[in-house]
Protein backbone atom coordinates (compact mmCIF):
# COMPACT_ATOMS: atom_id res chain seq x y z
CA UNK A 1 0.00 0.00 0.00
CA UNK A 2 1.43 3.36 -1.01
CA UNK A 3 0.36 6.16 1.31
CA UNK A 4 2.95 8.85 0.44
CA UNK A 5 4.82 9.28 -2.81
CA UNK A 6 8.63 9.48 -2.85
CA UNK A 7 8.48 13.18 -3.79
CA UNK A 8 6.28 13.95 -0.76
CA UNK A 9 8.56 11.90 1.51
CA UNK A 10 11.64 13.73 0.22
CA UNK A 11 9.99 17.16 0.61
CA UNK A 12 9.02 16.36 4.21
CA UNK A 13 12.56 15.14 4.91
CA UNK A 14 14.04 18.29 3.36
CA UNK A 15 11.71 20.52 5.36
CA UNK A 16 12.67 18.71 8.60
CA UNK A 17 16.39 19.03 7.76
CA UNK A 18 15.96 22.73 7.01
CA UNK A 19 14.15 23.32 10.28
CA UNK A 20 16.78 21.36 12.22
CA UNK A 21 19.63 23.31 10.62
CA UNK A 22 17.90 26.61 11.45
CA UNK A 23 17.38 25.43 15.02
CA UNK A 24 21.03 24.36 15.24
CA UNK A 25 22.18 27.72 13.94
CA UNK A 26 19.94 29.53 16.42
CA UNK A 27 21.34 27.50 19.35
CA UNK A 28 24.98 26.94 18.42
CA UNK A 29 25.63 29.40 15.61
CA UNK A 30 28.35 32.00 15.89
CA UNK A 31 26.36 35.17 16.31
CA UNK A 32 29.31 37.49 15.96
CA UNK A 33 28.60 39.11 12.65
CA UNK A 34 28.17 42.35 10.84
CA UNK A 35 24.71 43.46 11.74
CA UNK A 36 22.68 45.46 9.34
CA UNK A 37 22.28 48.92 10.75
CA UNK A 38 20.32 51.70 9.07
CA UNK A 39 22.83 54.28 10.30
CA UNK A 40 25.72 52.73 8.37
CA UNK A 41 26.39 55.04 5.44
CA UNK A 42 24.90 58.01 7.26
CA UNK A 43 26.60 60.96 8.87
CA UNK A 44 27.51 60.11 12.49
CA UNK A 45 25.34 61.86 15.05
CA UNK A 46 27.32 64.43 16.98
CA UNK A 47 27.70 64.06 20.75
CA UNK A 48 29.70 65.37 23.64
CA UNK A 49 31.13 62.68 25.86
CA UNK A 50 32.16 63.40 29.41
CA UNK A 51 35.40 61.52 29.89
CA UNK A 52 36.40 59.76 33.08
CA UNK A 53 39.25 62.25 33.50
CA UNK A 54 36.69 65.07 33.69
CA UNK A 55 37.37 66.47 30.22
CA UNK A 56 34.80 66.66 27.45
CA UNK A 57 35.12 65.31 23.95
CA UNK A 58 33.00 66.38 20.98
CA UNK A 59 32.81 64.04 18.02
CA UNK A 60 32.56 66.82 15.44
CA UNK A 61 35.93 68.17 16.68
CA UNK A 62 37.53 65.00 15.35
CA UNK A 63 36.62 65.63 11.72
CA UNK A 64 39.53 64.63 9.48
CA UNK A 65 40.35 61.62 11.63
CA UNK A 66 38.93 58.10 11.53
CA UNK A 67 37.08 57.17 14.70
CA UNK A 68 36.60 53.81 16.36
CA UNK A 69 33.60 54.20 18.65
CA UNK A 70 33.33 51.28 21.05
CA UNK A 71 30.37 50.74 23.40
CA UNK A 72 31.17 48.63 26.46
CA UNK A 73 30.17 47.79 30.02
CA UNK A 74 32.15 46.47 32.99
CA UNK A 75 29.83 43.45 33.40
CA UNK A 76 30.21 42.42 29.75
CA UNK A 77 32.48 39.39 29.34
CA UNK A 78 33.06 39.75 25.55
CA UNK A 79 34.17 43.35 26.29
CA UNK A 80 36.95 41.91 28.45
CA UNK A 81 37.90 39.56 25.61
CA UNK A 82 38.34 42.42 23.16
CA UNK A 83 40.08 44.81 25.58
CA UNK A 84 43.68 43.65 24.81
CA UNK A 85 43.04 43.92 21.05
CA UNK A 86 41.64 47.42 21.45
CA UNK A 87 44.63 48.53 23.51
CA UNK A 88 47.17 47.02 21.11
CA UNK A 89 45.42 48.54 18.08
CA UNK A 90 45.16 51.94 19.76
CA UNK A 91 48.94 51.94 20.27
CA UNK A 92 49.35 51.02 16.62
CA UNK A 93 46.94 53.63 15.21
CA UNK A 94 47.25 56.60 17.55
CA UNK A 95 49.81 58.26 15.27
CA UNK A 96 47.86 57.43 12.13
CA UNK A 97 44.96 59.87 12.25
CA UNK A 98 42.71 57.44 14.10
CA UNK A 99 40.96 58.11 17.40
CA UNK A 100 39.61 55.44 19.72
CA UNK A 101 36.66 56.35 21.92
CA UNK A 102 35.16 54.06 24.54
CA UNK A 103 31.59 54.74 25.63
CA UNK A 104 30.55 53.04 28.84
CA UNK A 105 26.83 52.22 28.92
CA UNK A 106 24.32 50.72 31.38
CA UNK A 107 26.88 50.72 34.14
CA UNK A 108 28.00 52.54 37.28
CA UNK A 109 31.06 54.75 37.42
CA UNK A 110 32.99 52.81 40.11
CA UNK A 111 32.67 49.50 38.25
CA UNK A 112 33.65 51.19 34.99
CA UNK A 113 36.78 52.74 36.53
CA UNK A 114 37.73 49.42 38.13
CA UNK A 115 37.31 47.72 34.75
CA UNK A 116 39.55 50.28 33.02
CA UNK A 117 42.21 49.79 35.70
CA UNK A 118 42.07 46.04 35.29
CA UNK A 119 41.55 45.55 31.55
CA UNK A 120 43.09 48.63 30.00
CA UNK A 121 41.50 51.25 27.82
CA UNK A 122 44.19 53.93 27.83
CA UNK A 123 42.39 55.78 25.04
CA UNK A 124 39.55 58.25 25.61
CA UNK A 125 36.79 56.68 27.68
CA UNK A 126 33.66 58.21 29.11
CA UNK A 127 30.17 57.47 30.39
CA UNK A 128 26.80 57.78 28.71
CA UNK A 129 24.59 57.80 31.83
CA UNK A 130 21.33 58.69 30.04
CA UNK A 131 21.93 56.35 27.11
CA UNK A 132 21.54 59.23 24.66
CA UNK A 133 24.65 58.33 22.63
CA UNK A 134 23.79 54.61 22.70
CA UNK A 135 20.25 55.22 21.37
CA UNK A 136 21.53 57.80 18.84
CA UNK A 137 23.74 55.04 17.38
CA UNK A 138 21.14 52.28 17.69
CA UNK A 139 23.14 50.25 20.19
CA UNK A 140 21.34 47.04 21.10
CA UNK A 141 24.02 45.31 23.18
CA UNK A 142 27.68 45.37 24.17
CA UNK A 143 30.25 45.25 22.76
CA UNK A 144 29.28 47.14 19.65
CA UNK A 145 31.73 49.15 17.58
CA UNK A 146 31.17 51.81 14.97
CA UNK A 147 33.80 52.89 12.47
CA UNK A 148 33.55 56.51 11.36
CA UNK A 149 35.57 57.76 8.42
CA UNK A 150 37.47 61.02 8.12
CA UNK A 151 34.41 62.85 6.76
CA UNK A 152 32.30 61.86 9.76
CA UNK A 153 30.32 59.14 7.98
CA UNK A 154 29.62 55.81 9.69
CA UNK A 155 31.20 53.20 7.41
CA UNK A 156 30.70 50.03 9.46
CA UNK A 157 29.17 48.58 12.57
CA UNK A 158 30.58 45.48 14.26
CA UNK A 159 28.73 43.49 16.88
CA UNK A 160 30.76 41.26 19.20
CA UNK A 161 34.32 41.16 20.48
CA UNK A 162 36.95 42.69 18.22
CA UNK A 163 40.32 41.25 17.31
CA UNK A 164 43.34 43.13 16.01
CA UNK A 165 42.67 41.76 12.51
CA UNK A 166 39.06 42.96 12.56
CA UNK A 167 40.15 46.40 13.75
CA UNK A 168 42.85 46.52 11.03
CA UNK A 169 40.27 45.71 8.38
CA UNK A 170 37.57 48.18 9.40
CA UNK A 171 39.82 50.99 10.56
CA UNK A 172 41.85 50.62 7.37
CA UNK A 173 38.59 51.05 5.45
CA UNK A 174 37.61 54.11 7.50
CA UNK A 175 41.04 55.66 7.03
CA UNK A 176 41.12 55.00 3.30
CA UNK A 177 37.83 56.84 2.63
CA UNK A 178 39.31 60.29 2.46
CA UNK A 179 36.48 62.27 0.83
CA UNK A 180 38.99 65.01 -0.01
CA UNK A 181 39.20 66.12 3.59
CA UNK A 182 42.58 67.27 4.78
CA UNK A 183 44.28 66.48 8.04
CA UNK A 184 42.71 69.54 9.62
CA UNK A 185 39.24 68.48 8.60
CA UNK A 186 38.76 71.33 6.14
Amino acid sequence: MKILSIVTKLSVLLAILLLLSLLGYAIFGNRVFLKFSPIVGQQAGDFTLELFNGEKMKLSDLRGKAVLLNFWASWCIPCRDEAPALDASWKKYRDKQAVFIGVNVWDDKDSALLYLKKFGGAYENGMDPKGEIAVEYGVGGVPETYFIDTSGKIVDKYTGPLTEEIIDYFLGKALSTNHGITKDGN
Partner: protein
Amino acid sequence: MVIDLKMIRKINMFRKAFAFTTPAFIILALLTLNSIADNIDDQVRKISYLLMCPVCQGQTVAESNSELATQMRAIIKQKLEEGESKEEIIAYFVNRYGETILGAPPTKGANWLIWILPALALVFGGAGIAIFLHKSKSEKGKEKAKEMLNEPRVQAESKYLEKLDEELKEFES
Protein backbone atom coordinates in the same frame (compact mmCIF):
# COMPACT_ATOMS: atom_id res chain seq x y z
CA MET B 1 -14.68 112.68 55.86
CA VAL B 2 -17.35 111.52 53.45
CA ILE B 3 -17.77 107.79 53.26
CA ASP B 4 -18.77 106.61 49.84
CA LEU B 5 -20.91 103.59 50.62
CA LYS B 6 -21.29 102.66 46.97
CA MET B 7 -17.54 102.53 46.59
CA ILE B 8 -17.15 100.35 49.70
CA ARG B 9 -19.80 97.96 48.39
CA LYS B 10 -18.01 97.73 45.08
CA ILE B 11 -14.68 97.03 46.75
CA ASN B 12 -16.29 94.34 48.91
CA MET B 13 -17.84 92.77 45.87
CA PHE B 14 -14.46 92.65 44.13
CA ARG B 15 -12.89 91.15 47.25
CA LYS B 16 -15.54 88.44 47.42
CA ALA B 17 -15.24 87.74 43.73
CA PHE B 18 -11.45 87.58 44.00
CA ALA B 19 -11.66 85.30 47.04
CA PHE B 20 -13.92 82.89 45.16
CA THR B 21 -12.27 82.94 41.78
CA THR B 22 -8.59 82.80 42.75
CA PRO B 23 -8.70 79.26 44.24
CA ALA B 24 -10.84 78.19 41.31
CA PHE B 25 -8.24 79.51 38.89
CA ILE B 26 -5.43 77.82 40.83
CA ILE B 27 -7.30 74.50 40.86
CA LEU B 28 -8.04 74.84 37.16
CA ALA B 29 -4.39 75.64 36.38
CA LEU B 30 -3.20 72.67 38.46
CA LEU B 31 -5.71 70.36 36.79
CA THR B 32 -4.62 71.57 33.35
CA LEU B 33 -0.94 71.04 34.17
CA ASN B 34 -1.74 67.62 35.60
CA SER B 35 -3.73 66.64 32.54
CA ILE B 36 -0.87 67.78 30.27
CA ALA B 37 1.57 65.65 32.31
CA ASP B 38 -0.89 62.74 32.25
CA ASN B 39 -1.32 63.24 28.56
CA ILE B 40 2.45 63.12 27.92
CA ASP B 41 2.91 60.04 30.14
CA ASP B 42 0.01 58.43 28.34
CA GLN B 43 1.59 59.19 24.98
CA VAL B 44 4.96 57.86 26.18
CA ARG B 45 3.19 54.62 27.17
CA LYS B 46 1.37 54.37 23.85
CA ILE B 47 4.55 54.94 21.79
CA SER B 48 6.56 52.58 24.03
CA TYR B 49 4.07 49.80 23.33
CA LEU B 50 4.74 50.17 19.60
CA LEU B 51 8.50 49.65 19.99
CA MET B 52 10.31 46.42 20.87
CA CYS B 53 13.05 46.55 23.48
CA PRO B 54 16.31 45.83 21.56
CA VAL B 55 17.94 43.94 24.45
CA CYS B 56 14.92 41.90 25.60
CA GLN B 57 13.15 38.78 24.39
CA GLY B 58 9.69 39.60 23.08
CA GLN B 59 9.10 42.60 25.34
CA THR B 60 8.10 46.06 24.27
CA VAL B 61 9.84 49.20 25.52
CA ALA B 62 6.76 49.81 27.72
CA GLU B 63 6.92 46.37 29.34
CA SER B 64 10.67 46.04 29.88
CA ASN B 65 12.52 47.11 33.01
CA SER B 66 15.91 47.00 31.29
CA GLU B 67 18.09 50.09 31.52
CA LEU B 68 17.97 50.62 27.76
CA ALA B 69 14.15 50.51 27.72
CA THR B 70 14.02 52.98 30.64
CA GLN B 71 16.39 55.30 28.76
CA MET B 72 14.32 54.93 25.59
CA ARG B 73 11.15 55.90 27.48
CA ALA B 74 12.96 58.99 28.83
CA ILE B 75 14.05 59.91 25.29
CA ILE B 76 10.45 59.48 24.02
CA LYS B 77 9.21 61.77 26.81
CA GLN B 78 11.88 64.36 26.04
CA LYS B 79 11.01 64.32 22.35
CA LEU B 80 7.28 64.70 23.10
CA GLU B 81 8.03 67.66 25.36
CA GLU B 82 10.06 69.18 22.52
CA GLY B 83 6.93 68.95 20.37
CA GLU B 84 7.81 65.97 18.17
CA SER B 85 4.93 63.89 16.86
CA LYS B 86 4.38 60.16 17.43
CA GLU B 87 5.35 59.45 13.81
CA GLU B 88 8.55 61.47 14.09
CA ILE B 89 9.59 59.66 17.27
CA ILE B 90 8.90 56.24 15.77
CA ALA B 91 10.85 57.22 12.64
CA TYR B 92 13.77 58.32 14.87
CA PHE B 93 14.00 54.83 16.39
CA VAL B 94 13.44 53.02 13.08
CA ASN B 95 16.26 55.08 11.52
CA ARG B 96 18.62 53.82 14.22
CA TYR B 97 17.48 50.28 14.97
CA GLY B 98 15.76 49.35 11.74
CA GLU B 99 12.21 48.10 11.23
CA THR B 100 12.86 45.21 13.62
CA ILE B 101 12.25 47.63 16.46
CA LEU B 102 8.60 47.91 15.48
CA GLY B 103 6.17 45.77 17.44
CA ALA B 104 4.23 45.00 14.27
CA PRO B 105 5.75 44.92 10.78
CA PRO B 106 4.61 47.83 8.61
CA THR B 107 2.08 46.86 5.95
CA LYS B 108 4.23 47.62 2.94
CA GLY B 109 6.32 45.75 0.34
CA ALA B 110 7.06 42.10 1.11
CA ASN B 111 5.73 42.63 4.65
CA TRP B 112 2.22 42.19 3.25
CA LEU B 113 3.02 38.49 3.04
CA ILE B 114 3.42 38.32 6.83
CA TRP B 115 -0.08 39.67 7.25
CA ILE B 116 -1.67 37.68 4.41
CA LEU B 117 0.06 34.29 4.71
CA PRO B 118 -1.56 33.16 8.01
CA ALA B 119 -5.03 33.99 6.62
CA LEU B 120 -4.22 32.23 3.34
CA ALA B 121 -2.87 29.20 5.21
CA LEU B 122 -6.08 29.07 7.24
CA VAL B 123 -8.29 29.33 4.14
CA PHE B 124 -6.35 26.83 2.02
CA GLY B 125 -5.77 24.46 4.94
CA GLY B 126 -9.48 24.53 5.79
CA ALA B 127 -10.40 23.99 2.15
CA GLY B 128 -7.95 21.06 1.94
CA ILE B 129 -9.44 19.37 5.01
CA ALA B 130 -12.99 19.97 3.70
CA ILE B 131 -12.11 18.42 0.32
CA PHE B 132 -10.46 15.44 2.01
CA LEU B 133 -13.47 14.82 4.26
CA HIS B 134 -15.86 15.19 1.35
CA LYS B 135 -13.87 12.74 -0.77
CA SER B 136 -13.63 10.17 2.00
CA LYS B 137 -17.42 10.23 2.39
CA SER B 138 -18.05 9.86 -1.32
CA GLU B 139 -18.59 6.53 -3.14
CA LYS B 140 -15.09 6.68 -4.56
CA GLY B 141 -13.70 6.94 -1.04
CA LYS B 142 -15.79 4.00 0.17
CA GLU B 143 -14.61 1.91 -2.77
CA LYS B 144 -11.02 2.78 -1.98
CA ALA B 145 -11.59 1.80 1.65
CA LYS B 146 -13.03 -1.56 0.52
CA GLU B 147 -10.03 -2.10 -1.73
CA MET B 148 -7.73 -1.37 1.16
CA LEU B 149 -9.60 -3.87 3.35
CA ASN B 150 -9.24 -6.53 0.69
CA GLU B 151 -5.48 -6.18 0.61
CA PRO B 152 -3.74 -9.40 1.83
CA ARG B 153 -1.88 -7.64 4.67
CA VAL B 154 -5.09 -6.06 6.03
CA GLN B 155 -6.96 -9.37 5.70
CA ALA B 156 -4.20 -11.20 7.52
CA GLU B 157 -4.31 -8.63 10.25
CA SER B 158 -8.11 -8.85 10.56
CA LYS B 159 -7.92 -12.67 10.76
CA TYR B 160 -5.32 -12.35 13.49
CA LEU B 161 -7.52 -9.85 15.36
CA GLU B 162 -10.55 -12.15 15.09
CA LYS B 163 -8.51 -15.03 16.54
CA LEU B 164 -7.26 -12.77 19.31
CA ASP B 165 -10.82 -11.78 20.16
CA GLU B 166 -11.93 -15.41 20.30
CA GLU B 167 -9.06 -16.38 22.59
CA LEU B 168 -9.73 -13.44 24.88
CA LYS B 169 -13.39 -14.44 25.12
CA GLU B 170 -12.38 -18.02 26.00
CA PHE B 171 -9.95 -16.73 28.60
CA GLU B 172 -12.58 -14.49 30.18
CA SER B 173 -15.17 -17.27 30.33
